[in-house]
């Protein structure tokens, strides 16, 4: 993809993001329910409430409020959370890495699981094994992350308690982290006990998020692989004595990947969106879990900040997918 194309995509993305900001802002401001009243409790005087309203800029007109917020946004200030009484940007900085690690790990697992299913299905094509693989994948495809998560809770936390039910790691762990990317940092600093602890906490939520995406990856990739396996270059390589597995991995996979990535990129945004409820189920300290509390507490600045963060992530994913597809295709890379 040329630089101009990237810039054009970024410009469209900016317009979309602005639209998201406007929609959220309008939705929240026309909504009934007073965040100040929820925050301050019944005994407060009128004057106190008015003072607080002024402090959070809620006494201004809708348009004025929006432009104040927009000005802050451009200056890198997302306002102050009403319920947590803390800087929104700071809160995002604290919580976002947890969500990014969760979604990133889920993406990796989804690609591995989906890729394996697709390769098995391709090797078993036109044999009874294919129906088994397709059937299993059809089940994966139909079950959403919410059901997976709760099923895992029942099986792996209650019936056979092997994984911890909640949190990101044991509270007893005492490690001075330099970043908020605990999983990556513990790995890089070779703190394997801590790393293992985090992994065991993340296993259930990651699997719940990954399985639906894995099913989609598997279906699309298998179709693309089988098509590639019918090409003459595969036949020629087969005549040279390459095994079927090597044919799939060396000849077909590279050709099947761009289409798969392009088709599953959007699905990854669904995975990221799914972190909201999955983090809730496992009390995982990411922005999704925080978002639900923010909504329940009518914490307007925080909701806005989180929604914007999700929107930015979605757009970044789409852009990254386009770039990856271009990078994988030699025709586009050189042309």
């Amino acid at each position, binding site marked *: 993809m040329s630089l101009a194309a990237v810039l054009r995509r970024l410009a469209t993305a900016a317009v979309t993001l602005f639209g998201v900001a406007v929609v959220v802002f309008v939705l929240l401001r026309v909504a009934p329910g007073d965040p100040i009243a929820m925050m301050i409790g019944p005994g407060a005087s009128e004057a106190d409430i008015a003072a607080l309203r002024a402090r959070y800029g809620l006494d201004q007109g809708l348009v004025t409020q929006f432009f104040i917020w927009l000005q802050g946004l451009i200056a890198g200030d997302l306002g102050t959370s009403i319920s947590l009484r803390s800087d929104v940007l700071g809160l995002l900085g604290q919580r976002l890495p947890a969500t990014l690690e969760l979604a990133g790990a889920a993406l990796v697992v989804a690609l591995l699981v989906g890729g394996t299913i697709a390769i098995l299905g391709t090797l078993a094509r*036109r044999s009874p094994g294919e129906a088994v693989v397709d059937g299993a994948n059809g089940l994966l495809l139909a079950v959403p992350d919410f059901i997976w998560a709760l099923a895992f809770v029942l099986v792996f936390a209650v019936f056979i308690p092997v994984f911890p039910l909640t949190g990101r790691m044991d509270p007893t762990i005492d490690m001075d982290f330099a970043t908020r990317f605990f999983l990556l940092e513990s790995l890089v600093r070779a703190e394997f006990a801590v790393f293992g602890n985090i992994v065991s906490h993340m296993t259930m939520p990651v699997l719940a998020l990954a399985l639906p995406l894995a099913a989609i990856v598997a279906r699309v990739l298998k179709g693309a692989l089988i098509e590639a396996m019918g*090409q*003459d*270059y*595969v*036949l*020629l*390589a*087969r*005549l*040279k*004595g*390459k095994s079927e597995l090597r044919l799939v991995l*060396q*000849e077909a996979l*590279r*050709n099947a990947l761009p289409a798969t990535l392009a088709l599953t990129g959007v699905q990854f945004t669904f995975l990221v969106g799914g972190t909201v409820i999955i983090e809730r189920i496992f009390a995982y300290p990411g922005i999704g879990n925080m978002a639900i509390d923010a909504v329940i507490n009518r914490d307007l600045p925080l909701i806005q900040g989180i929604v914007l963060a999700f929107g930015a992530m979605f757009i970044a994913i789409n852009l990254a997918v386009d770039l990856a597809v271009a990078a*994988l*295709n*030699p*025709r586009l890379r*050189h*042309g």
Partner: protein
Amino acid sequence: MSAPLLDISGLSAISTRENARVLRDVDLVVAEGEVHGLVGESGAGKSTIAKAVLDMLPRTIRVTGGRIVFRGRDLASLDRASLRALVAREIALIPQDPMTGLNPTRRIEAQLTDGMRLVAGMSRGEARERALALLEEVRIADPARTLAAYPHELSGGMRQRVLIAAAFALEPKLVVADEPTTALDVTVQKQILRLIRGMQERHGTGVIFVTHDLGVVAKICDRVTLLYQGKVVEAGTAREMIETPRHAYTRALLAASPRYDRPEHGCDPVPGSVVAGLEAEIARHDEGRAP
């Protein structure tokens, strides 16, 4: 010349999907160093024969009788692994479409040297040397640059040259050329035919040349076998068949093929009576045999 390179006798096959005969008692002999044309309309069974020789028949086609003897060995008597090894070593394929014959995501060097490294066990350096020599032999102007290129950077004719180089890379005894010129335009076609003939003569390789075009047969083949619906209609030297065709179908087919020397002549379709005669012959052949 002693024993033939390839001796197919009485080969019959059915398609399990359509429950129809696809090959009917086919005899085919290819001598060492000869170019043998396998001619017929689409569906005549020429591709099925080629696939049977390469042990690449789809699961839907079952061989019901006959033998394929390659250099004195009955292919059916070999176990799967030694058959694969034999094919990899001594039989090669030039595919029909140069666009899909090369993997778009791998460089030419990797694709050209695959067989040398896997089958002949050459080192990376040896394989590269051999690849350069081969590309020179198929008259590619800049072999080093071509090796580093991806397929989409080459023209259709160049790709077909690369595929020919790959087919001759391991000095096979037999090359199956599956309509290698149909996807190319006419001027390139002639060059490619000349190239295959030249390579074949230099290396002393036997070639099965699959085509539906009798004009091509005249240019490149020594001997020809003509098929209709899986049955051999006529076999003989290319010259005999074109100058003194014995079978009415051969004559009709010759009349139907465009002549490069007389383009204004046009072509005549195969007459219905000839087709009816053939159908009757095939019906007689099938009589008494359960399909």
